[in-house]
């Protein structure tokens, strides 16, 4: 079945030269976009047009274009990753948009994610949180057989649910407090559900939360917006688990 063509779209995009300059919206007209195209392919077409006109194309992050690397990070019509559920921007398709529509595209907005250029933001804060304790302290080699410690299927599945996080930052961008609790709780939960991770569970929860606070992410007020925006449907029950892990760790101090 052939896809329909959108004859005309108005693309209203945040343009910002670099981290120091002030940004502003600009609107571009775009013609002949197939509804079978992905959202990023639509931006490719826009950029092709801008380059041919002698203008600077729009900078945006992307790499795998199949919803798993977590690079792409667009706020589309007021929603992280746009108007569809459980997908990233690169998996969003133009059939979700209508003829003649104005599509507004912004970068992630959060104090801890400063804009680098146009739609690209700096997510190093996520790196620092992971480096603070997002691991099991085990070196290469000298580990027991993979089947030495049985792990119940339910625990393994729950750990996997949490581990599915792609680190895109949609949760932070969506949260009115710019909280990173969903992101941090996903990693803490994955390890909390597994015997290998439990050993240093207390240290991990404290280190990651403390780093998150230090980097300027806001507090969690349980609005649940993050869960809805998450392309991987990470549940806020992970935040409850993080709170429990953190509280227990603090009480043990």
């Amino acid at each position, binding site marked *: 079945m052939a896809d329909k063509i959108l004859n005309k779209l108005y693309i209203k995009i945040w343009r910002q030269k670099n981290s120091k300059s002030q940004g502003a919206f600009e609107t571009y007209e775009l013609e002949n976009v197939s509804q079978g195209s992905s959202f990023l392919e639509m931006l490719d077409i826009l950029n092709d047009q801008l380059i041919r006109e002698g203008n600077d194309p729009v900078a945006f992050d992307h790499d795998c274009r199949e919803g798993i690397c977590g690079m792409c990070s667009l706020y589309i019509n007021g929603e992280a990753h746009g108007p569809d559920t459980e997908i990233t921007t690169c998996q969003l398709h133009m059939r979700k948009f209508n003829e003649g529509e104005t599509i507004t595209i912004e970068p992630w907005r959060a104090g801890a994610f400063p804009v680098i250029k146009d739609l690209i933001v700096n997510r190093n804060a996520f790196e620092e949180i992971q480096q603070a304790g997002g691991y099991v302290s085990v070196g290469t080699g000298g580990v027991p057989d993979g089947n030495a410690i049985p792990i119940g299927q339910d625990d*393994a599945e729950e750990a996997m649910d949490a581990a599915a996080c792609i680190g895109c930052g949609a949760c932070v961008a969506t949260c009115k407090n710019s909280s990173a609790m969903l992101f941090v709780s996903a990693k803490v939960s994955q390890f909390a559900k597994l015997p290998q991770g439990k050993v240093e569970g207390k240290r991990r929860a404290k280190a990651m939360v403390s780093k998150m606070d230090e980097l300027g992410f806001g507090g969690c007020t349980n609005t649940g917006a993050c869960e809805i925006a998450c392309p991987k449907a990470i549940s806020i029950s992970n935040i409850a688990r993080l709170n429990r892990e953190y509280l227990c760790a603090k009480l043990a101090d």
Partner: protein
Amino acid sequence: MSILDSKAPAGPLAEKWSKHKASIKVVSPANKRKLDVIVVGTGLAGASAAASLGELGYNVKAFCYQDSPRRAHSIAAQGGINAAKNYQNDNDSIYRLFYDTIKGGDYRARESNVYRLAEVSPLIIDQCVAQGVPFAREYGGSLSNRSFGGVLVSRTFYARGQTGQQLLLGAYSALNRQINAGTVEMHNRTEMLDLVVVDGKARGIIARDMITGEIQKHGAHAVCMCTGGYGNVFFLSTNAMGCSGSVAAQIYRRGAYMSNPAFVQIHPTCIPVHGSQQSKLTLMSESLRNDGRVWVPKKKEDAVKLQKGEISANDIKDEDRDFYLERRYPSYGNLVPRDVASRAAKERCDAGFGVNAEGKAVFLDFKYAIDRLGRDTIEKRYGNLFQMYEKITDVDPYSNPMQIYPAIHYTMGGTWVDYNLMTTIPGLYSLGEANFSDHGANRLGASALMQGLADGYFVLPYTIGDYLADEIMVPKIETTLPEFAEAEKSVTDRLSQLFNANGSEPVDYFHKKLGMIMWDHVGMSRNEAGLKTAVSEIRALRDEYYTNVRIPGELDNLNPELEKAVRVADSFDIAELMALDALARNESCGGHFREESATEEGEAKRNDEIGCYASAWEYKGAGQEPVMHKEELVFENVKLVQRSYK
């Protein structure tokens, strides 16, 4: 004697690696602290290598072009990772995994390397479990396995359809631990643009800070390339946008030989191309062939109706469906290796039985598995893949069969390395998909992850010591050496040349044209005339590129078009080698199908008289013909037979 010394140890196959490890040098902890190692790329090979080297005490600098090491394209691998654990008691063994890999690769890989890969494979699973990788489990708590194409045992470990993601996050967590410990210095959004060679040894890299445009010089005692494959030479592939082969081309021009560039894997189960605006193809995991049945209509008129959209798949009765893989290959059925399945799909579509408007798709049908196992089971096994399919195509694969078609997926070819994973430049290593060593002419499913982690966790950390033991007296490599200035100038000249071309066409225009040349002539089916055309067309397009490309923006600011421009410039050099290599290899083997070398039934016909070698291409300068060297492949343990999956 060839100038290529594989350094494959002598002796019985099963003892080679232990004997080799016992004979190579080891660097003391005190001396490791004085040695610097650069790791470029942070996928499975790079992240595991950087973490392991950091743990050993080397000073590691790691680089990736993404904003986080976790985003490297290993993350996208879906189906699983092989390991010879024999947990299923189905008579698996290290030898069987070795044999399957050699046979699956159509006898074009080096025996010693492949055996080592199989030998360390069980350790990888243990390592990942210890890191907290949430592999699929049985109710009793033990690890689950599934089967994959080209083998008769169940040895594939998996984490839903996101195995690559979970393994990479495991390696990334190990890397983060070392970054936190200060043994690894991580450089995100920093792209390598050249290799620095001093007195014949790899001594550093030139890289560009992608945010500021600053050109940086980094010195080290050894340099490791973990930069993945070059699938995006074809423009459309299942690879990430950055899988250009750029670094492979850079080190090739600096003297590292490029091996078997013609060996490209075309994956049979990808979502078909939707139109000219497409930028990327999406893979549907091979694991789906465990439960999905591949078919096209038996009757041409049904195919024509499907193409016109007059009927849908479910209108065609069972007896009118041609399950062509089960028909042609009764013993392996839908689980034949990727190259075989891809060619069979092309054969049916070329014969007019394609099922979409373009006639370039076949069905992958889960109706039968859902009838047999229930929808819940299928959803548990493949839920995320089905969701992905539905989001992209707007079709529900639970009630309609998927449409699939082959697409470029993986590159078996890569930089030539010896048994120690060292390239022809001393001190320069190549790991994972970036090297050529383990998969021959075709890679088996779930073996890429295995190789990346084997190289990074369990091979390089040993073999690099053998080289670095002789470097302990070499002081820190100063980037004030003239070789660094020369390499830096070569990079800035190249950037300026591209930037100042000030032509009329954007980078993608050329990239798409290059992709068409490659798909038409260096794709699933190749012949002498087409390959000769490809070589001349690639060269002509490359000449035009340097004079007519238009790069907007600035050199010293974040500039994605400039980044792409360099990668595509490098892709031209790889593309040329791919065509030349395919032309030189006048036999069919694995993913390389030469029309001149086929059986009457259209199956690939290998020719061991002329083809039992790994090519190694030497750069001779811009505008000069590259020279091919051959590493003769010696098989002491397996008998070469024509692959048969019938």
